[in-house]
């Protein structure tokens, strides 16, 4: 029996959730879960975790384009079946990890991975450029201002030596979001690549009547640039529509999200901004937002050379200039942002000066604080 379209509710199962994590742990993880003492990274891409009672887990981390076929995933399963007793995992940065319980098995696993061409690059650990977290871009999304998989491939090709080694002052987390919605949450990355629009939305008066709730479209604009207006469609009929005050538009695209009759993507208008210096870890310094240093670079498929060139320059200058453990944002703050622009040879423009609103800058946005008598209610 399967789905019966004549009785869609018959035998239906809902709300059962995902499988329990406990059902799918590799044996070496299951045996040592919660007992880990410390870890080492003997070489790039290999982690060794040591547990109480002598348990050891060897992990090999491999990069992935995130956009992967079922054949690719099945090949990962073949590898896991051969070496890892039929288990594997994925990281929060789209890498895959294979785990075994001995050095011999680890060596065999590495040899197998290396025999498979460029499909499973080993790396992404320690002071490296690890995999880029990214969005869908032109492969699947309806609002992008740039592609995602293409520029990610171009940047990772360009920075590959840093994925497979651990020679940087600290880790560099790169992320790409193909529009300001930032499904990739790039706003706290060492280097953020962000698709941006630069032309205000058009208004499609032939389409607006059927697809757009005008008050929602008007309310969607954070700067009040959209007003109700009467317009004439291509049939000569008067329709209720909206008017956009282009001078107020900040090109966020929120109106298009709400109203399909207000497209703003454009081959010349769209491109990529680069923001740097963000981090999410609380280590040493509080989490930081990425800051806009390059307001616009054109979309130049298939390899976005202008983008890869700036990213490479930032990485090289940072690699040479920063101190051990210093993240890009910490380095930029130590040397000063004026020095950052100078050393990286990035032209400074007024576009890097904030003229939007900012309100909550005195709230604590870190989990790092001191216990005092004020916290007794929680801790004593």
């Amino acid at each position, binding site marked *: 029996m399967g789905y019966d379209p004549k009785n869609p509710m018959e035998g239906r199962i809902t709300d059962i959730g995902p499988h329990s994590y406990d059902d799918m742990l590799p044996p070496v993880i299951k045996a040592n879960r919660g007992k880990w003492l410390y870890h080492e990274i003997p070489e790039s891409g290999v982690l060794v975790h040591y547990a109480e009672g002598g348990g050891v887990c060897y992990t090999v981390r491999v990069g992935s384009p995130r956009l992967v*076929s079922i054949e690719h995933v099945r090949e990962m399963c073949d590898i896991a079946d051969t070496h890892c007793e039929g288990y594997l995992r994925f990281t929060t940065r789209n890498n895959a990890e294979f785990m075994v319980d001995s050095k011999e098995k680890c060596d065999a696993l590495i040899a197998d991975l290396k025999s498979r061409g460029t499909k499973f690059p080993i790396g992404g650990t320690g002071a490296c450029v690890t995999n880029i977290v990214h969005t869908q871009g032109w492969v699947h999304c309806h609002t992008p201002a740039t592609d995602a998989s293409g520029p990610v491939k171009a940047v990772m090709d360009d920075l590959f030596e840093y994925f497979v080694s651990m020679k940087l002052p600290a880790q560099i987390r790169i992320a790409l979001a193909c529009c300001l919605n930032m499904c990739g949450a790039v706003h706290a990355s060492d280097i953020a690549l962000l698709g941006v629009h630069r032309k205000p939305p058009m208004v499609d008066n032939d389409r607006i009547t059927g697809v757009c709730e005008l008050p929602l479209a008007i309310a969607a604009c954070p700067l009040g640039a959209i007003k109700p207006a009467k317009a004439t469609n291509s049939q000569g009929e008067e329709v209720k529509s909206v008017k956009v005050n282009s001078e107020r538009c900040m090109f966020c695209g929120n109106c298009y999200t709400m109203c399909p009759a207000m497209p703003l993507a454009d081959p010349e208008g769209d491109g990529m901004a680069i923001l740097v210096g963000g981090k*999410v870890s609380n280590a040493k310094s509080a989490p930081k937002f990425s800051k806009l240093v390059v307001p616009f670079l054109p979309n130049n498929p298939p390899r976005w050379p202008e983008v890869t060139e700036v990213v490479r320059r930032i990485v090289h200058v940072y690699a040479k200039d920063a101190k051990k453990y210093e993240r890009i944002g910490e380095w930029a703050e130590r040397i000063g942002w004026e020095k950052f622009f100078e050393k990286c040879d990035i032209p400074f423009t007024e576009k890097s000066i904030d003229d939007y609103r900012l309100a909550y800058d005195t709230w604590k*946005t870190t989990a790092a604080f001191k216990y005092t008598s004020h916290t007794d209610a929680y801790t004593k």
Partner: protein
Amino acid sequence: MAKHDTPMLDELEKGPWPSFVTDLKRQAETHPECWDILGQLELSYEDKITHWKHGGIVGVFGYGGGIVGRYSDVPGRFPGVEHFHTIRVAQPSGMYYSTENLRALMDLWDKYGSGMTNMHGSTGDMILLGTRTENLEPLFWDLTHDLKQDLGGSGSNLRTPSCCLGESRCEWSCYDTQDICYALTMHYQDEIHRPAFPYKFKFKFSGCANDCVAAIARSDFAVIGTWKDDIQIDQAAVKEYVAGNYSVNGGSHKDGDWGPFSLKKEVIDLCPTQCMWMEGEELKIDNSECNRCMHCINVMPRALRPGKEKGATICMGAKAPILDGAQFATMIIPFIEVSKENEYENIIDVIERIWDWWMEVGKNRERVGETMQRVGLPTFLSIMEVEPIPQHIREPRSNPYVFWKEEEVPGGFERDIVAFRKRHAA
């Protein structure tokens, strides 16, 4: 479906990083619709613009989320991607898979979909990328009946919760991130599948302040592991680090030319609160000054460990920039026990206090962090029944515009202007 010329995409088959183009071509041999993915993407590379239409509401009966509708705007040229809906499958906590399950999922997608996936999407779900409307219900049937698993969230609902790998393979995790993530995912299936919120709401669970799941940057409700007693020190291991016998930071800087390890330069001097020093060969920490940032523990994992009395800090209200700018989560609850013993009842209480309030006052498409900004932190704290403490702020306000309440001012706000004028002529 015809194979299309893709000269630009072919360029992306070169270079050392794995190529999604090569992979798509490989999959196209058994799923010819992949040729149309390539063809339409090549057209986007020529035109420098997307060829996907806006929206399209599709789903399975009874759910308001989990599937994102997508249609090509050039279906005549690329019929294989005319419908290209996305399915979000809730991931297991920590993203460990048995190959048995992963193969079953791939077989399912072989049967119903394009053959392309994202492992994984930004929120954490497994993404099955591209299928037709008529496949949705049969796929959902097989997913729930045969694979015994479920869709994730999309739209204005609780998004699929996610976590770092926690104590499954990390020595620093201060609570069981996988277990609470799974428990709350199961507890809130209704909230995940049926949108009833002003906007999306995300839980993310990180085991320590390194925050590998970026909870503080992108979740409305960030649970970040911490401890309330002293960092555990193994002085013998400290000596081994000083002697150069243990690899520093686990060996994370191995390929750089950084010279011999200096405990003073790399740990003591980089401590943000300057709460560490050496007495002879002993490393000392003034734990009352420590802010538990994790740096020293990161550098010397064999010598230093989080304390024994562990729990979490709860920060609330993070989001990406749309609309009022990006927000990190604001520290609200300094320390809370996280224990499966009480089935996370204390955490659930906090979550539902936010939801009860936000569902009432939150505006359409307003993230809770924006609602917090709109009402102000003092008001939010009082709604949360949390006493204001200096830990809630980075610094006190610099403006004097205090919203005094009438009951705080002797005599209240009502006064008599006539009586006032008798004493003070205009």
